[in-house]
């Protein structure tokens, strides 16, 4: 018995070199994107980090559930596809404000950024990965409820051609409203891109997460507040054209105006956009995305050389 070797011994097999494959920059950027996207939803992190994102996901699902229920029970559609995002804008703004600082602030505050840059990735790759992660997260938040609504529409047999709000509020919408659904999915991506670019850019200017949250939410409140106040002021002076332009100060209505210009349809918010809102809004959306991305790139180039 004494000659049997002891069990449960950890053998030190020494250092082993790595001879397997080594991927390039593209792989690293993808890994950073996936890691960031997981982080936005609190995956791989504490339970506390999951509370806010999943509560907001649940709230985003409520209208879809109500919509499907309404279709099944009273054969009515309270919401149009294009009206979904403007109706849920506060939830999306809270999601953006609470999660975009999470994406960028810790890397600045705990100085993880130099470690990333000591890998083959460049500051531009880093910015791209973070934007892509936030855009994907917001798109999921928009696309999943829209898709649930659409599946509901396919499954439940609605009488086609019925107006969603009664004839008085808008034209009849076919059922299933495939064009409306696809248009809203495409513009879900535009919303996601615009919100991600602005939100992450603002958040990237402070290493403090709390300050980042406050800055993003303040920016949204400012934009929507100014929009509401100006709209009310112009309406009281009967400047209807100016009043409708004032709506576009709110980024959600800005994108919505472009969507209605391209795909037609009603917002469901009872708002009328000015005639030229579509093309000019499209330019404004592109300019905002470009400006935010440029600001982020400049910010990270500076951080990289420090």
């Amino acid at each position, binding site marked *: 018995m004494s000659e049997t070797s002891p069990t449960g011994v950890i053998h030190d097999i020494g*250092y082993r070199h*790595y001879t397997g494959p080594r991927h390039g920059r593209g792989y690293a950027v993808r890994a950073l994107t996936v890691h960031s996207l997981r982080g936005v939803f609190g995956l791989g992190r504490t339970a506390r980090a999951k509370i806010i994102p999943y509560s907001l996901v649940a709230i985003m699902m409520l209208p879809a559930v109500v919509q499907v229920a309404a279709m099944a029970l009273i054969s009515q559609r309270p919401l149009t596809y294009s009206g979904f995002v403007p109706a849920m804008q506060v939830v999306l703004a809270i999601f953006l404000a609470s999660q975009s600082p999470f994406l960028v602030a810790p890397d600045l505050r705990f100085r993880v950024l130099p470690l990333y840059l000591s890998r*083959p990735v460049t500051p531009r790759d880093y910015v791209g990965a973070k934007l892509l992660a936030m855009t994907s997260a917001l798109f999921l938040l928009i696309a999943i409820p829209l898709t649930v609504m659409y599946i509901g529409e396919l499954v439940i047999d609605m009488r086609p051609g019925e107006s969603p709000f009664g004839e008085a509020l808008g034209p009849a919408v076919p059922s299933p409203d495939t064009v409306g659904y696809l248009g809203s999915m495409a513009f879900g991506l535009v919303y996601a891109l615009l919100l991600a670019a602005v939100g992450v850019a603002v958040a990237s200017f402070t290493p403090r997460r709390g300050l980042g949250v406050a800055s993003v939410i303040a920016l949204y409140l400012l934009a929507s507040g100014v929009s509401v106040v100006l709209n009310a002021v112009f309406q009281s002076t009967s400047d209807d054209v100016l009043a409708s332009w004032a709506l576009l100060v709110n980024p959600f209505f800005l994108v919505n105006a472009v969507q209605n210009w391209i795909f037609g349809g009603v917002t469901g918010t009872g708002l009328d956009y000015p005639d030229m809102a579509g093309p000019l809004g499209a330019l404004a959306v592109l300019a905002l995305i470009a400006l935010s991305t440029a600001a982020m790139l400049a910010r990270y180039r500076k951080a990289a050389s420090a």
Partner: protein
Amino acid sequence: MTILTTEGLTKRFPRVTALDRLSVTVGPGVTGLVGANGAGKSTLIKILLGLVEPTEGSGRVLGLDFRTQGDEIRRVAGYMPEHECLPPDISATEFVVHMGQMSGLPRTAARERAADVLRHVGLYEERYRAIGGYSTGMRQRVKLAQALIHDPKLVFLDEPTNGLDPKGRDEMLALIRRIGSEFGISVLVTSHLLGELERICDHVIVIDGGTLLRSSAIGEFTQATQSITVEVEEGQEALAAHLSGLGETVTAHGRLLAVHVRGDQTFDAVRDAVCDLDLSLVRLEQGRQRIEDVFRENAHV
């Protein structure tokens, strides 16, 4: 074989010149880069990684030009920064795996390597806990692990013993020695303490104010020192007088006596003197040159 070379490397910032026409050559093994704070050590590492553009000068790391092939250098080199660089809310395992992927390792390979490397740096059960709760020593180990995860050919370690207690310092130094010898990874390690690097380096480069003060194999440093340190419990004045009487050169540094070595007879003289005077010998060791000595020596030249 040359691991890296620089030729007339200069880096000027708006208000300060960090490196001034620095030309160095580094071979395999462990190389120490010594200099006071602000001597330009960190700037040199960032230039070698291709992260900071030099104002003038050129050079190569592992045969790659750091001005144009920075991303290829960063693929095969590891970097442990001087400052804190760890997110507090994820575990060491998850962080090191992620950093492995950022270096291009497939996820499964990164997992295996992370387990290996964390074991080598001495992190066991605690590697599954969030980094936020780690001690300074454990953090330094995680920082080292992320620099080794992709099995680099060369690692830059910027002040790896910073903030460690004496025991942690010794363990870290032993680990660096192992990386250079057993792991076969070349190491460029910075410190402001020459004595610390003396113990583990094959070669030491001393820079000050961005210029090269000295670059030599470690043997030459100890040769240059050529002194032994003697400590006795009491009566060092008597010992000093006795040795001086025998023709030895003795200088007192507080409780310690530094005796210049003329040859084997110096060791005999010290031994005999201690016996003759009936003193209690506490320490007899090879003189450790401190960075101040190098500066002083250089000032004399």
